[in-house]
């Protein structure tokens, strides 16, 4: 059974980091800034990125030997959660995934060369998806990559390739890759496709680490996405509640109508559950087996919570909800895009069934 996976541990440092990250994102990513960046080609503010690097956030889960802070995966969660809450655009997730990929799948040389750079703010990303749409990361043809976030801004891309009939990971400098921007549903993010260039032996990461590295990427990606979505779900409910408290129709503040109040309560309960599962996942993520279970549960729940909260938010904003100016659509699109990456909620449930039954 999974009772023990509900336990939540929180260090004082994590609590402080959470406060710090929330304040930082609130400050650096007010909604006007979020909206201004929607049409920005790069999609994020490089100055803010540098500040994040200066705060040490990019080195959180990189060992001190590689000039990181040597903390835990769980310590990344508060940052990703705060970014999700404030819809803050940055290459934090893609760079963190690349760092974890190198840490678990790279050679000593690759680690020594890249981890210190990533810890100090060099942008990187991972290229794992292909036009087939497969969420199984080892199903690789190795010709074209898609959904590569922040690829244009990255200096290095960790990509799966097909090499001698095997799925391998390679570390390819961005300047050898020609990327093309994709039109994705979530306009707060920047996604690119590219044709995989010829890889040299030098690019390749050690074959015997491929499987472990892919597992690691998937685990970390799902954890960070849970944090992003959980933060966004809570913010979306707050956004809806604010409107329900002020908007009047038929001479009444509309939040008094149970038709709006009760589903909003349900959305809130979902979002609270997603948050709790997120912290539980952060607590257990490093445990073999348990980590994947806790993370997939958190992710499935967070996807559902944000989708529902945002869907109802659009509806409950009435006419305004149907406009581009209403933030409900931003939240809804975040959830839609998340479902396309690393598996949607039904996919996670199917995997969980394999793990648990």
């Amino acid at each position, binding site marked *: 059974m999974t009772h023990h996976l509900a336990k939540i541990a929180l260090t004082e440092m994590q609590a402080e980091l959470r406060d710090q990250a929330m304040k930082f994102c609130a400050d650096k990513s007010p909604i006007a800034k979020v909206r201004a960046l929607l049409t920005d080609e790069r999609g994020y503010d490089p100055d803010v990125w540098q500040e994040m690097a200066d705060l040490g956030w990019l080195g959180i889960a990189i060992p001190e030997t590689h000039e990181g802070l040597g903390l835990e995966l769980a310590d990344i969660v508060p940052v990703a959660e705060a970014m999700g809450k404030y819809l803050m655009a940055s290459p934090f997730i893609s760079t963190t995934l690349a760092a974890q990929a190198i840490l678990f799948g790279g050679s000593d040389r690759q680690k020594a060369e890249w981890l210190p750079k990533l810890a100090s703010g060099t942008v990187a990303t991972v290229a794992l998806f292909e036009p087939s*749409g497969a969420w199984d990361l080892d199903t690789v043809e190795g010709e074209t990559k898609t959904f590569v976030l922040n690829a244009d801004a990255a200096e290095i891309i960790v990509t799966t390739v097909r090499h001698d009939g095997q799925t391998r990971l390679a570390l390819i400098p961005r300047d050898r890759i020609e990327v093309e921007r994709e039109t994705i549903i979530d306009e707060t993010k920047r996604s690119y496709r590219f044709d995989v260039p010829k890889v040299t032996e030098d690019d390749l990461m050690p074959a015997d680490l491929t499987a472990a590295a892919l597992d690691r990427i998937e685990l970390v990606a799902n954890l960070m996405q849970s944090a992003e979505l959980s933060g966004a779900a809570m913010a979306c409910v707050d956004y809806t509640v604010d409107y329900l408290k002020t908007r009047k129709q038929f001479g009444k503040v509309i939040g008094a109508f149970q038709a709006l109040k009760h589903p909003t309560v349900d959305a809130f309960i979902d979002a609270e559950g997603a948050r709790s599962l997120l912290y539980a996942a952060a607590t257990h993520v490093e445990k073999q087996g348990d980590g994947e279970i806790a993370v997939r549960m958190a992710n499935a729940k967070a996807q559902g919570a944000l989708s529902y909260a945002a869907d109802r938010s659009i509806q409950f904003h009435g*006419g305004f909800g*149907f406009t581009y100016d209403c933030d409900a659509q931003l939240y809804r699109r975040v959830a839609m895009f998340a479902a396309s990456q690393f598996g949607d909620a039904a996919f996670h449930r199917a995997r969980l069934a394999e793990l648990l039954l």
Partner: protein
Amino acid sequence: MISVEDFAAGADAWFAEHTPRDVPFMMPLTFMEVGTDEQFEFLRDWQNTVYKAGYLGAHWPTDYGGGGLTQKHQDAATRAMRKHGAPIMLNAIGIGWAGPLILDTGTEEEKRKYLPGILSADDIWCQGFSEPDNGSDLGNAQLKAVRDGDEYVLNGSKIWTTQGNYAKYMILLARTDFDAPNKYAGLSFFLAPMRIPGVETTKIRKLTGEYGFTQTFFTDARIPADTLMGEEGGGWKVAMRTLEYERGARGGQAGGYTISQTDPLEVVGLAKRAMRNGKPALEDPVMRDRLMAQMIEAQAMMANRERSKIMPLVQEKPFALPMLSKLQFTEYARETGELALELEGAQGGYYVGDEASREDGYWQRSYLNAFSATIGGGTSQIQRNIVGEHVLGLPKTR
């Protein structure tokens, strides 16, 4: 007069030949989705062409630009349009709302002045009922119309004005009396000109990223007093009558269709084509289960429509099925969008315009657009009140 059969055959042949194919831009499926000038110009020309060929307003009197035939003739033409998948008729508010109202209750002068331009699409009409602060509560409209000699002076704002930026006229619900005994009694109804000083429109961007609605601002805009329809203070009655034309509860619409009905089972096609996790979506039993549930819903809606025509099978609550159909269909469409996203798997992450998106992002856009119908024309929440109160007889909420 030409027989209906011959007319129908002619229409069939004409639409077979003239329906435009391979249009190089996204064709709006409803008049509310006309978001670019290119779409607008194309559809205006198309309506004009159809009209000139005699297949729009065929049953309206020839004195007012119509064909002088019967409703059955026009219905045959409309069927032919649908059959051949012709683009929609653009001037929806004119065809379905303003036109029938003027034809029915207008003066001879009004009929001659307004009706021909509605059919030819030379005069685009829009509707001004909703206001920013009164989206659901139409009866509470606050746009002020003050009589001043031969004119009314308008101040206020209307919202969700489809094609407001293209329209020459607006059917307008305004408040002429702020001291009336109840909120409805203070309203009046106008056929207001739009291209006059003091009227400005701003395009509203939809959550899909596209355009299609406007907000209209009136600042000391002066309209002739004779644009009043009905009596001063009788505007609510006129507005309600107009809604009945729109719902098809009264005859008189110029014909054609302004909303291309989507097939509720369209999602089955997607399900057959879509890939999830690199495999055909329909290999996944969970998706099959969800798709079947959705198909059963679609089938129930279609069967409801059939049953609503058979009196002995609706005798207990004769108006139930028509009254619940808006709620049922619009929520179905939204849920279908959600299911489509699941079926599409990773491809749900792309959006309209991306080369890798399935069917050019049709389903993502369609899900987002679905809210126009679950919100517009009375939100689903208000529809549930209506069904609960008027069909089931439950006490009013408020």
